């Protein structure tokens, strides 16, 4: 640690940053306070249009919920200059991100299983499931279809959620809630420029009309050149450009979001597409060939109806259609001699599914809640296609239709004023493997006014996806239709205490057991890769968090996560599983909350790689400066990420020759936002 600190001091830029930050701490906190005017003179009609600078508060939801929850708000996104969804998630206690320059992967509580395409975390947008049916994957990087500008808040619930949400709710459930039309009350445009020629623009229009109609339309586009030259020592030979991949890190993403709601009805359209080149020559593709590129497109249309009647009943019904398409071009060198024989292998996915759900909640005596619900989904297209383009050869063209459905019940009983009992169970039926039942029980007890203890027990599952079941090209891999779901059983204890109205401390300890893991294996009989259920992994850990709001004018959070995993078969810890993650966040507002500086520091300890080596631990610092209403309607922010330009690595996956992949050095981003009313 001392060594790290010394290096920082040496860094002139680092010192400048510290000066900037420390200066910001000393600024007057609310300069506008001395403005004497009688607020009671403002007519009622104007009050709800007045923009206020909010004192930040603890989320009530988090302390009442029968789970360990983190809530990230639009203000946090502004304060710390989060550019992408994974920027937010990596700054959340107990989580970490792995990036292989193709996708970003979320790791939770010691599990960062390589190549799982985020299929063990459920990501929802306004309650709509975004994990697809082919890979079970959720997008957490630049492929996430909602731009950061548009997020109102994110609820991150750690632990199993299958008793309510079914598959993929294995390690966490993350619900992203976009802003609503009334928040914009007109138009908003933003422009960003960042390191490595990354440019992003967004345009949004939102309004709520007197008739009750509320609309929001938003589009965004990102074009990032990425690193123009990346060096990979594994490929350092004259035939492979001395290990330098040129212009192979580009990222082009577009999103569109529409939300139209009237009374209890709401319709949402979400669209996201991303085209990414990857410089790593993953999957055995030819090194330094720009034609290797993958385009992923996800969209959905969701109709929701929600209504409260007779004061104590709440009905929610929704129907939706989703699509996930992927167009991969992988350039392979098929030559056996000296002359290269480059062939474009296309790997294409076309998938669509639709379904519905209904949920009824009854509130009894204003405090007990009973919920019953059902969900149904029909995947009517899951076309997996693989062929060589130049000299046409078809390896795979399969299309399978599947159905799954579920029923669930949940009850919350306020046994006494300070004891809440919560229990839920869900039964899922898949026509591929049959049924699975997943319960969850929680007790929330407040022995004193400012202290809450929670005891949680829960099971969850992850259904085998289409890729694991049916991907059969008989050249590299074969399917296994007999796969069973993966299971997890968890116990967790949470303690939370408010030291004062402004200071909260919380701790949690948990134990996880993952069974029937779906792992990739090579069949020695035919040399084909297939998936099978094998293995059990135990994990346990503890998290500690200290959070302050408006303490000496500063907001901040200090957190530490200790986690440990052990696979029973190998008697060893998992790959990509850090033991320690520590974080510090600090935001110093100035000008009465109109601006401020955010500082973020994060430490992730060393992780084992697939090659049974280790990537070193790393310590990163980000800073962001924010100035709202610089001119009427104009917001400016500037961020510096990996301020001290630390060199650090993430473990590679099975598809990489590289055992470790170097991550981004120092980056910056400047953002301008402009809001205006349209009359």
């Amino acid at each position: 640690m001392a060594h790290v600190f010394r290096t920082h001091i040496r860094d002139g830029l680092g010192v400048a940053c510290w000066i900037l930050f420390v200066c910001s701490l000393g600024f007057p906190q609310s300069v506008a306070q001395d403005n004497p005017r009688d607020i009671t003179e403002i007519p009622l009609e104007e009050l709800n249009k007045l923009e206020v600078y909010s004192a930040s508060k603890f989320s009530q939801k988090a302390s009442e919920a029968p789970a360990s929850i983190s809530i990230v708000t639009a203000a946090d996104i502004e304060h710390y200059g989060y550019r992408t969804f994974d920027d937010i998630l990596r700054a959340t206690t107990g989580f970490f991100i792995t990036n292989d320059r193709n996708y970003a992967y979320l790791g939770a509580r010691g599990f960062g299983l390589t190549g799982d395409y985020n299929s063990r975390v459920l990501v929802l947008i306004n309650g709509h499931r975004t994990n697809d049916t082919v890979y079970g994957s959720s997008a957490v990087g630049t492929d996430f279809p909602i731009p950061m500008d548009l997020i109102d808040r994110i609820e991150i619930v750690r632990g199993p959620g299958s008793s309510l949400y079914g598959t993929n709710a294995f390690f966490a459930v993350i619900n992203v809630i976009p802003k609503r039309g009334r928040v914009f009350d007109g138009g908003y445009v933003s422009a960003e420029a960042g390191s490595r020629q990354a440019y992003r623009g967004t345009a949004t229009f939102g309004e709520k009309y007197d008739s009750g109609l509320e609309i929001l339309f938003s589009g965004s586009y990102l074009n990032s050149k990425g690193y123009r030259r990346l060096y990979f020592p594994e490929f350092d030979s004259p035939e492979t450009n001395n290990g330098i991949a040129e212009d192979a890190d580009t990222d082009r993403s577009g999103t569109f979001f529409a939300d139209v709601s009237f009374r209890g009805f709401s319709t949402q359209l979400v669209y996201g597409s991303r085209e990414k080149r990857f410089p790593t020559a993953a999957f055995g593709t030819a090194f330094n060939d720009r034609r290797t590129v993958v385009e992923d497109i996800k969209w959905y249309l969701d109709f929701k109806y929600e209504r409260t009647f007779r004061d104590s009943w709440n009905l929610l019904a929704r129907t939706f259609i989703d699509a996930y398409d992927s167009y991969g071009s992988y350039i392979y060198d098929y030559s056996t001699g000296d002359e290269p024989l480059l062939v474009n292998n296309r790997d294409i996915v076309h998938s669509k599914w639709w379904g519905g759900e209904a949920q009824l909640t009854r509130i009894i005596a204003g405090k007990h809640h009973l919920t019953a619900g059902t969900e149904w989904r029909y995947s009517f297209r899951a076309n997996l296609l693989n062929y060589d383009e130049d000299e046409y050869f078809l390896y795979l063209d399969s299309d399978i239709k599947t159905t799954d459905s579920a029923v669930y019940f949940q009850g919350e009983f306020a046994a006494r004023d300070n004891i809440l009992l919560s229990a839920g169970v869900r039964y899922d039926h898949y026509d591929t493997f049959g049924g699975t039942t997943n319960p969850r029980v929680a007790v929330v007890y407040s022995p004193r006014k400012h202290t809450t203890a929670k005891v949680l027990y829960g099971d969850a599952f992850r259904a085998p996806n289409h890729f694991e079941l049916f991907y059969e090209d008989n050249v590299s891999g074969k399917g296994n239709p007999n796969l069973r779901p993966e299971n997890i059983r968890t116990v967790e204890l949470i303690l939370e205490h408010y030291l004062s109205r402004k200071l909260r401390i919380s701790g949690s300890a948990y134990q996880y057991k993952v069974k029937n893991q779906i792992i990739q294996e090579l069949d020695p009989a035919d040399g084909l890769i297939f998936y099978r259920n094998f293995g059990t992994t135990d994990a346990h850990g503890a998290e500690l968090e200290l959070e302050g709001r408006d303490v000496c004018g500063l907001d901040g959070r200090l957190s530490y996560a200790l986690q440990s995993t052990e696979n029973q078969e190998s008697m060893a810890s998992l790959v990509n599983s850090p033991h320690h993650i520590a974080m510090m966040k600090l935001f110093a507002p100035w000008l009465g909350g109109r601006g401020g500086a955010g500082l973020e520091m994060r430490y992730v300890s060393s992780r084992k790689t697939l090659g049974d080596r280790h990537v070193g631990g790393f310590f990163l610092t980000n800073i962001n400066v924010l100035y709202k209403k610089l001119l009427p309607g104009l917001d400016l922010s500037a961020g510096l990420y990996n301020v001290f330009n630390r060199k650090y690595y993430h473990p590679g996956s099975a598809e990489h020759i590289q055992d470790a992949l170097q991550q981004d050095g120092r980056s910056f981003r400047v953002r301008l936002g402009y809001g205006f009313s349209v009359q």
Partner: protein
Amino acid sequence: MFGVSTNSGSAIQAARGLGRALLFAILLAVVPECLLSNNAASGEPAVTEYEVKAAYVFNFAKFVEWPSSAFPAKNSPITIGVIGNDEFGTLLGNIVKGKTIQDRPIIVRLLKWPADLHSVHMVFVSASEQKLLKQISEKLLDRPVLTVTETEEGLQARGIMNLIVEGGKVQFEIDIASAEKAHLQISSKLLRLAREYTGKNTRR
């Protein structure tokens, strides 16, 4: 540690230079600006969330009608109790000082729980004390007391009036059924400006 080395290339050098330039630009532009200006650049004064909430509380007193039995005399004061946020109580006290609503002066009391709720007409339960709301409601039964909360969206326990901060603006909701039970008349002006009241959203 890994023995992997890197060849950053000129693009990164350029980016670094740009990063450095940017940082100094911020230092030069933003910092002196903040030190020198003592008010918002746009000239638009900043209002805090609690100032607006106090204004709302004042307006609720103005646009809600209590049954005449709630006051001993024609010019008896309207008493507002504040639980759990003394800073807000003090702010509210300063704001309503010397003001009258239909000849009634307004008194603000900082209540400590368990408090005497019998002599208040309105009680503001701050977010930190939200758990007490159930007990308060039970204690009040259907007496004409206007409960005001600042409960987040999606949570069940709310007062008759609930203040919400959304998109940087303070909005309010009315629970009409509870208002009727408490024999409080809410003016159509308030009803018109209130956000729709939606039921508890347990799941999403």
